[in-house]
């Protein structure tokens, strides 16, 4: 988990590299001079709804025991019929609004037929002929462009089959069968693996910010099919190949690069690129043929005769629009307007991506919302420093992420206030923070400070400080003598003694001055 935080933090540095790269792509890419790369991406994002798309069975995560969340409908028992879950529509519309897509008044559901054991009805219900949203844009700040969205459709996820090669048996798990998916299809607007990577990451952040999906590629709640082609500038587009089922952004970028090289190699040899569907071998970092265009299945699309058309009226859309969660671009602008540096805002937002996305659009408590609450009525810079440097730092040392944080905003708020009003020192504040995390304590910092004797005593006349200093001088005669003789560096040893005996309650600057006075 720590690794993930680090990985994410490292990402925030990428822009510099990207800018350099973007500058080059206008002309050409040093990796493939004289070639232009065209990439389009189909993303399947699982809708984070409590219930499935067409049944009231609960959705599952990977931790769920197999085949626990399966109703007769999900297993395609005869006589069962679909019931559209309005929550899925709502989250779909939220996503469409966030992508500036055009939500259609009327859309419809179709059946896509193919035989596979994890598809018990023999068809997937999707929106082939009339998707609920078309058009739209996703901004890629680093690439300095916007990728156009072609369409967004609602559809069912399949079950999962795992093949036991030793026993030569397939196991079917229907927990996932019928979970709602959003298929988000981009236009072929990306021109490098890096742009494709930024597109998927931006989409992930957007889906999470509106609460419509976890967007987690490793766990399979977001999956990408990538279309890649190459051509010479000024010439028509090349033949595209589709790479299916890639399960991380990193692999996707590697797969695109590998596919680009493969196409160029073929074309350089005067051979055509065959239109086909390809898989990606993570070990070899190369793609391999799955099926050719001729073998492409005929899905026999048919309007679903059970499900009436979906009508989405303007009032419904306006209502969702008025209650839209903040989008990443708006969050960043707001944080910076509050006085945060771009770097601090990025860190908060990167950590925020790791937050739990609630069911049915409930927005989870993430780092940004923690900051918003903490900064309320407080100095924003102080608040962000306590979160980034102290809280996140301590969590990282513990190999924990922000999700594991047990310290409430109220506890943190009181802690910051105690330090700011000098009732405790900054050092004591850090001690208390560690104490709360270590003991998973729900006690208020003031209570803990009293227990640990960390409250700065009302030492108005400085007698206590004077006593700690005298005690230090007496305990360390050799060092004291050295200071008297002008070795100022040794003063820090005495100061350390004062801080220890005072349990951090002494103010370092005043203590230093007092020691100097007593030793002069």
């Amino acid at each position, binding site marked *: 988990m720590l690794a993930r935080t680090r990985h994410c933090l490292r990402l925030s540095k990428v822009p510099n590299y990207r800018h350099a790269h973007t500058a080059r792509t206008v002309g050409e890419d040093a990796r493939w001079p004289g070639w232009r790369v065209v990439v389009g991406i189909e993303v399947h994002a699982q809708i984070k709804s409590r219930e499935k798309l067409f049944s009231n069975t609960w959705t599952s995560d990977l931790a769920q025991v197999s085949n626990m969340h399966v109703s007769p409908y999900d297993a395609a*028992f*005869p*006589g069962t*019929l679909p019931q559209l879950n309005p929550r899925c529509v709502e989250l779909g519309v939220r996503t469409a609004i966030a992508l500036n897509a055009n939500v259609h008044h009327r859309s419809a559901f179709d059946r896509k037929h193919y*035989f596979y054991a994890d598809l*018990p009805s*023999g068809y997937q219900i999707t929106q082939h002929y009339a998707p609920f949203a078309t058009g739209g844009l996703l901004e890629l700040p680093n690439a300095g462009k916007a990728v156009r969205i072609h369409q967004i459709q609602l559809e069912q996820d399949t079950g999962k089959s795992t093949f036991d090669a030793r026993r*030569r048996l397939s196991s079917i798990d229907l927990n996932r069968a019928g979970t709602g998916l959003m298929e988000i299809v981009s236009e072929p607007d990306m021109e490098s693996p890096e742009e494709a990577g930024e597109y998927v990451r931006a989409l992930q952040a957007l889906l999470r910010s509106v609460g419509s999906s976890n967007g987690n590629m490793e766990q399979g709640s977001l999956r990408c099919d990538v279309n890649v082609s190459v051509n010479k500038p000024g010439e028509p587009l090349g033949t595209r190949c589709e790479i299916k089922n890639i399960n991380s952004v990193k692999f996707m970028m590697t797969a695109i690069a590998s596919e680009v090289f493969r196409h160029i190699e073929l074309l350089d040899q005067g051979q055509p690129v065959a239109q086909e569907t390809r898989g990606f071998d993570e070990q070899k970092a190369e793609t391999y043929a799955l099926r050719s265009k001729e073998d492409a299945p005929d899905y*026999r699309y048919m309007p679903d*005769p059970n499900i009436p058309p979906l009508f989405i009226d303007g009032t419904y859309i306006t209502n969702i629009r008025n209650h839209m969660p903040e989008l990443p671009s708006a969050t960043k602008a707001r944080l910076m307007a509050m006085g945060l540096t771009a770097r601090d805002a990025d860190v908060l937002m990167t950590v925020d991506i790791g937050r739990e996305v609630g069911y049915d659009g409930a927005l989870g408590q993430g780092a940004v919302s923690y900051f918003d609450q903490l900064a309320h009525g407080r100095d924003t810079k102080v608040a962000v420093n306590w979160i980034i440097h102290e809280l996140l730092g301590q969590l990282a040392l513990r190999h924990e992420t922000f999700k594991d944080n047990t310290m409430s905003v109220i506890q943190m708020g009181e802690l910051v206030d105690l330090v700011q009003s000098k009732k405790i020192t900054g050092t004591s504040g850090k001690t208390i923070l560690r104490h709360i995390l270590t003991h998973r304590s729900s006690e208020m910092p003031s209570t803990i400070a009293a227990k640990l004797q960390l409250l700065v005593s009302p030492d108005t006349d400085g007698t206590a400080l004077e006593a700690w200093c005298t005690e230090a001088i007496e305990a360390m005669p050799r060092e004291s003598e050295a200071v008297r003789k002008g070795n100022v560096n040794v003063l820090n040893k005495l100061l350390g003694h004062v801080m220890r005996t005072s349990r951090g309650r002494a103010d370092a600057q005043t203590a230093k001055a007092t020691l100097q006075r007593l030793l002069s």
Partner: protein
Amino acid sequence: MLVSTCRRTKPQFRLLRRNHSTLISRDELVSKNRTVNALVSLTSESSFSHHQDVSLPLHGVTVAVKDNICTSGLPTTCSSEMLEGFYSPLDATVVELLQRAGAHIIGKANCDEFGMGSLNVHSSHGPVINPHQHPTSSAPWESRERRSAGGSSGGSAAAVSASLAHVAIGTDTGGSVRLPASYCGTVGFKPSYGLLSRWGVISYADSLDCVGLLGRNVDYALRTFDVLSQYDSKDPSAARPETRRRASEACKEHVSQLGLDNTLQKLKVGIPQEYFPSELDKSILNPFRRTVDFLKSLGASIIPVNMPSTPYALSAYYVIASAEASSNLARYDGIQYGLRVEPPPGTDLTKTSNVYAHSRSQGFGSEVKKRILLGTYALTADAFDNYFLQAQRLRQLVRQDFDNVFRMPNPLRSTHQHQPDEQGVDILLHSSAIRTAPPLASASPSSDSEDSLSSYVQDVLTVPASLAGVPAASVPAGLADDGWPVGVSVVSQWGFDKLVLDIARAIE
């Protein structure tokens, strides 16, 4: 009400005499069923008791349920080897409503496999034998002439006709309730599409499938309809409560304007000219003419009408129904439930088709396979526009024919009251079938080719109402020249189910 008027004038038209009120014992039921083969599973003797609450609307009413409607207590096989011994985990909404209303479900009724067929010969349980016996026959009933009960709800119609049950629930996709009702001499009612819940009804063609009712008389059908016509949120194609209310108010108002209390003087009866195909056996027209004369005698105006899209209805129906069937029957793969035939050793199991093909080849009968193939073809990318989309356009035209011919607007297409179209008619009347029940071939399941083609032609008369989703009832109209029953069909605008039943009761 009209009923009272008609009861007075009715006896002369009641050619089928039957004791409607007595219940038969279980032993009698079992032995009778043996020569009819209407029921394929029976509710156990221990639970063969009746609801005690006499105030319930269907107290004391026995019901047979077609075997493609889910019951958790009895197998639901769709007469297919694919679902042999299959117990559904759920009860269909209509089954629940029947039980809640005090009805007693006696068992499951034979049918054509997955509802596909017009003769009830395509059944893993064997064909249903029509319970009717020629009035002049001297042979014992058990050795009566073997004729088809019609399909696909043949078991349902035969159960009612043989007095095994007061009421039977069937399904009607293209005539599957009305046709067997006509052959067996019972009332068969296909309500407006979307009024009766399809939750728990095993899909053949979702956009056409309707739960239908078969009764010993119109009153049984009406009482059952009143119980079952409820909005069910589990059926996505169910008519919404506000649509039902609008339709039912429009129907009520229309019926009161017609003033059916004493006379049919304001009633306009349309006779669609396209409903007399060349295949129609002229010898069955006498009962139909008698019905027309009877309505005329009560003051109704008889008006010839044209429904020009009718000739296309049959092909549109078979494309749409087969396409939907090929989709709906894709789920029977031997993985989750139902028949599973293990592939022979050495089969390459990485290909899905190798795993599924054996179960599907053995599990489905020939008629089902034929329609799956036809439907699969109609949905392929190359054929989709010319077949499936073309069929949908024709379906639109057929719908338009009905909207054009009726004087009341279609409640599904108009949210506000239109002025009634005074040129239009209130109901359509036509023969339910092109002939009386055909003899069952001595050799089991009918051979293909010509035989099956003629069974498709029969559907000419029933599929238009299915495509349009409008209510249609087949009412016994007496015996044709060959001594076998024949029905007439009353059809009206969507949501005017009560009008259909009112007129059906007048004819009865």
